[in-house]
């Protein structure tokens, strides 16, 4: 975790320098970042509480049977549909997905879950329906489900073969 913090800090520094040289708006970048952090902090805190409770509540047998690498296709299907139900932004969804991973979920399940949340997350539904119509939303959902399942299967394969 410390390594990730160092990499992200170095990236933040590099981007600040690039911004200072190219646009001169590096201070605005800092302001935007801190403002967004302040705005989302209560949301993240709530998500941490939710994620912590999920981690202690979800029974180990459930994770083992339904979400772990051993669950195989069952976990991937569950992840592919479960991601849709996470009707929330990344600040709230990622801690929950992180807690499911920490409980013992397999890589395939976690990747199916994230991919499904990215593409099919219900948070987008009102916007898609409003701007493109309900038919577009239905077509997009039906056409995208296979991508989530395939992503999960590839993730499962990577876990079995590489990791």
């Amino acid at each position, binding site marked *: 975790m410390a390594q990730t913090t160092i990499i992200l*800090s170095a990236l933040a520094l590099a981007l600040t320098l690039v911004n200072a040289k190219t646009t001169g708006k590096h201070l605005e970048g800092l302001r935007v970042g801190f403002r967004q952090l302040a705005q989302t902090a209560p949301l993240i805190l709530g998500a941490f509480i939710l994620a912590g409770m999920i981690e202690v509540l979800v029974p180990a047998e459930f994770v083992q049977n339904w979400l772990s690498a051993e669950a195989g296709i069952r976990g991937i299907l569950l992840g592919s549909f479960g991601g849709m139900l996470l009707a929330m932004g990344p*600040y709230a969804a990622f801690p929950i997905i992180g807690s499911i991973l920490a409980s013992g979920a397999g890589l395939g399940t976690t990747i199916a879950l994230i991919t499904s949340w990215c593409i099919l997350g219900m*948070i987008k539904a009102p916007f898609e329906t409003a701007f493109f119509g309900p038919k577009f939303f239905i077509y997009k959902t039906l056409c995208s489900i296979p991508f989530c399942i395939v992503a999960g299967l590839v993730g499962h394969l990577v876990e079995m073969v590489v990791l």
Partner: protein
Amino acid sequence: MKRSFLIILSSALVITIMTYLIGGSSLLTEGFRVSLNTALQSALMLVASFLVIGQIQVLLSKEVLDQWLQRFSGIKGVVMSALAGGLFPGGPYIYYPFVVSFKGKDIPFYIIISFLYGKMVFDVTRIPMEISLVSPTVALVRNIITFPIPIIVGLIAERYLANRTMDSFLEEIGDADGSNHDNS
């Protein structure tokens, strides 16, 4: 943001009560201990993540990406618009109105669909959060595995919907009221 906060807050409240009812105060304390540990471990990472997000948002203006979307076509257009989508800052309340602002500009539908999938799958401003709140390994593997999705979707749309513009596609599927949201 308010809606998400209310959803999270009410969900957290319900699940906290459930935890207490199922496991009593010991399980509840354990839950709060896990939450606090995660929060403390992620605090510095979150600050760094938001600094990255802030700089990216200022560096890549809407105008830069707008020009990018209108310049390319064909396979190059699919790839470039998917990448533009990934670089586009903001949530659905920003990028859907941005996309609809192309109404009337005769931009092929496959360019729009590549952009939308690029935003949903690549989103660079989300990567720091994925790394810090899920896991760096999962973030890396997930991004590699899903990288082709926006390009495949764009190419399928280019193959089968090549002649459609966003306007004609919306007219065809019949039930979108894009005119109400035209920002151009």
